[in-house]
């Protein structure tokens, strides 16, 4: 008997250890999408679990349109309303429903704002599957959901609707990500550091302009001329479930659509549903609302609003939440950190949009940046005193104005750690930055044993940053995002000193 008991204990102990380690490996293999990428579902969902219980009054759910349109930081800064954006790329209505259910375990929102884009086909030309989204989109939202009976239910339903997706693989991630070991990166090994950094309450920032874009709006007075476009199959069931859940929890559900050149037919089907169920519907494609918030396709982009467009939409949402739904302001210290994150991202976008070299050099005075300067051959004919001084103000000592043609320059400033090379001979230097975690190399090889492009080469953290343009190359490495965020060439051999991004 004693022997049997001993064997049983050994068996159970071994099984437990093996299972724990397999689960740890699974976690390691799970793809991670943090604040350093364009989309950051890992931060969105992991940050959500770190919120204080019942600290959120408004939840946003929906597609990538919603991720880039609803900025909780702006709503908090302008109205003191605490909100969180649980949207994800191509978020299926099924995912919206399950994440709403999951969120309600931790928060008691007064309002849920649902992006109605998810109720129709994501593209006109391609149907992914009955879930209305790519498999990867399901994974990005579901992989970060905590294990619970709710997740088991979700996995089973996903697998039932799209049999190519294996329900078990939502729990044993190695079934899905068995090949990930070939490209595990820093964020996989330092997961906790990336999680602790945090995002912007689920909001993802986008920059850029589209000067040629024209405003596309719809006019409600034309509605009678069109037939409503039917919603996708699963919308019937899951939208109904969302409505029910909101009713049961005394939550005000709001439907919205952000500016994306929506068709009248789609508008009509959502508007009819909203009217039938007595749900408020705010569609920013509708001409009056579009103009009321001062939206512009060329300045704010369609489909995915840039951060300026998001500010307009978010401000409006904050206003109606405050005035029409009586959401009151509160103090939430977690918005202090997210404000820093937001401002940092905005600074990066502004830097990448700057075309004036003097302004650009001023913006580089930022402790978060490591700066690399590479001037391989011919660069000082029109290098003026102001520009040279601004380069030196970044911490470099070399005076590039005095260099003769044929002299190569390399400079690096990593948070005060400065390295400079000035020589008229071929060279190959390597070094590390970011406390040894990043690596750079710079080569001038005129022997013609390498391709012409690689005569002057520079690699920073695995990114090829070399080029053969005349003038000075500046590479900006953001230590917050742990990546190269901008590479510019300033042609200082012409008077215009134009900036080329490469």
């Amino acid at each position, binding site marked *: 008997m004693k022997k049997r008991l001993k*064997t049983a204990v050994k068996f159970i102990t*071994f099984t437990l*250890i*093996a299972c724990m*380690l*397999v689960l740890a*490996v699974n976690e390691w*293999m799970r793809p991670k999408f943090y604040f350093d990428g364009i989309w950051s579902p890992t931060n969105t969902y992991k940050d959500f679990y770190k919120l204080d219980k019942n600290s959120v009054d408004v939840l946003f759910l929906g597609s990538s349109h919603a991720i880039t349109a609803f900025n909780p930081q702006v709503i908090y800064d302008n109205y003191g309303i605490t909100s969180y954006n649980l949207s994800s790329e191509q978020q299926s209505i099924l995912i919206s429903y399950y994440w709403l259910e999951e969120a309600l375990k931790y928060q008691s929102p007064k309002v849920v704002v649902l992006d109605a884009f998810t109720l129709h086909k994501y593209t006109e030309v391609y149907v992914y599957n009955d879930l209305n989204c790519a498999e990867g989109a399901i994974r990005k939202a579901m992989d970060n959901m905590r294990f619970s009976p709710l997740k088991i239910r979700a996995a089973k339903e996903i697998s039932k609707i799209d049999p190519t997706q*294996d329900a078990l*693989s939502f729990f044993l991630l*190695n*079934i*899905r*990500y*068995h*090949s990930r*070991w*070939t490209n595990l990166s820093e964020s996989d090994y330092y997961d906790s550091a990336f999680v602790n950094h945090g995002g912007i309450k689920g909001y993802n920032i986008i920059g850029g302009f589209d000067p040629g874009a024209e405003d596309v709006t719809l006019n409600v007075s034309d509605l009678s001329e069109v037939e409503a476009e039917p919603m996708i199959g699963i919308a019937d069931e899951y939208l109904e479930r969302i409505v029910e859940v909101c009713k049961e929890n005394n939550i005000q559900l709001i439907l919205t659509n952000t500016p994306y050149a929506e068709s009248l037919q789609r508008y009509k089907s959502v508007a009819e549903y909203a009217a039938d169920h007595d749900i408020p519907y705010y569609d920013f494609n509708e001409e009056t609302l579009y103009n009321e918030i001062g939206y512009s396709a060329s300045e704010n982009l369609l489909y995915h609003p840039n951060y300026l467009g998001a500010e307009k939409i978010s401000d409006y949402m904050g206003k109606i939440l405050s005035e029409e739904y009586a959401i009151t302001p509160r103090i939430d210290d977690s918005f202090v950190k997210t404000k820093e994150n937001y401002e940092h991202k905005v600074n990066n976008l502004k830097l990448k949009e700057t075309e004036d070299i003097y302004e650009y050099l001023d913006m580089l005075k930022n402790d978060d940046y490591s700066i690399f300067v590479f001037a391989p051959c011919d660069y000082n004919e029109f290098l003026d005193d102001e520009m040279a001084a601004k380069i030196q103000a970044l911490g470099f000592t070399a005076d590039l104005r005095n260099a003769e043609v044929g002299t190569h320059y390399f400079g690096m400033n990593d948070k005060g750690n400065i390295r400079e090379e000035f020589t008229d001979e071929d060279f190959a230097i390597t070094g590390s930055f970011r406390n040894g975690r990043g690596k750079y190399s710079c080569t001038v090889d005129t022997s013609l044993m390498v391709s012409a492009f690689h005569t002057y080469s520079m690699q920073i953290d695995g990114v090829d940053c070399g080029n053969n343009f005349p003038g000075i190359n500046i590479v900006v490495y953001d230590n917050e995002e742990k990546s190269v965020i901008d590479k510019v060439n300033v042609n200082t051999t012409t008077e215009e000193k134009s900036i080329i991004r490469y």
Partner: protein
Amino acid sequence: MPIKYRWLALLAGSLGFYWFISDNSIIAFSILIGMSFISWLLCLLMSKKEKGRKPIFVILLLIIALPLLAFKEFQYISTTFFHKSTPLWWIAPIGFSFYTMQLIAYVSDVFQKKTEPEKNYLKFLLFVSFFPQIIQGPIPRYKQLGQQLVEGHKFDEKRFVKGFMMILWGFFLKLCIADKAGIAVNTIFDNFPTYQGFYILVGGILYSFQLYADFLACTSFAQGFSGLVGIDIIDNFARPYFAVSVKDFWRRWHISLSSWLKDYIYIPLGGNRKGTFRKFLNILVTFVVSGIWHGGGIKFIFWGTLHGLYQIFGELLNPVKKALKKALHIKDDSQPLRIFQSIWTFYLVMIAWIIFRADNLKIGLSMIKSMFTVGNIWIFTDDSLFSLGLEWKEVIVLLLCLALLFTVGILKEKGIAIRENILKMHIALRWSIYIGVILFIVIFGTYGFGFDAQAFIYGRF
């Protein structure tokens, strides 16, 4: 459950497993039950008679062997000569080739009075359907397995752990070697003539290891699962790629089939007792039968014949080899000679595997021809090999796994019992090894999403 009746649980489990793996096919299940019942009944009848045994034996052999032949060859004959495809249901039930051989061996042994017939049909059915081996063998003899299955076994921790180790080894072989190599093999073989020349050499080598690892994995699973319930199953391989001749290869490869062919084809034909010509003819016939067993069509007959010819020429060249060794002062037990012989044997076997794996004989011969006529040696230096579906990191893992397989082979050749040695280690070290292997397979194995899992190759035969 009392030990005495535990075999009933094994029987229920085996039948359930067969029902499951044959996709709940009533036909497959009925064939298994029907063939085993007829064999059991007629063997009992035969054992009770002193006269008239032979006609029963012959009828029984025909009843057992003809369906196998029909399933194997009818499809090929129908599509090749009559250009008509066989009906969809004309597919051999899973494991059919294996249990047919098992039944023939049993019937022959009873006929020759080498074994007593089993009186209890259910016990006999357990012998035929025993779940760990029904898909891919080994092909057991009743004398070796029959009693073990029904005698009942107490739980033995040591045997259980040894079985567990065999299962882990099976997973390693299947997921880290066979299925990984299979990706590149499929790319090359499924896209000929895109891939020619040295690609075929690479494909042939990888296929040789894929087939070995795949088949060895299945045998390991069979031994492992049997070990968990205290039953020993014979080894089906003895490091075949260390063989120093093709004859030696067949002593080490698919041992249960080779010994079956020897006992029930080669020796009854006269073996080597009727002169050199008859011996060579018997070898050829035996290998042709082996080819037919492996599949329908001329390709498998050619493959079998090629192996027969390898052996015949091997023997014919013996005097030349002896003269050469004498002239070059090479001793018979010289290590370099053994290595050379192993490499040469592997090469010959690999050439035959190319025919075996190719879509048909014509393509197989064209592939072999291209190996010798297309000189694209640069594929070994310009990263072309990494475009076969395995990136360089996967290739390194595959090579490391093959190196481990090779090392294990060497240790076993030296008679070192690896599992026994592991069992002697401190528990912390033992568990570290088990868990290390599990994690290695989870991380580096080839399986899951985006990967078309390969069925066991020999399960098709």
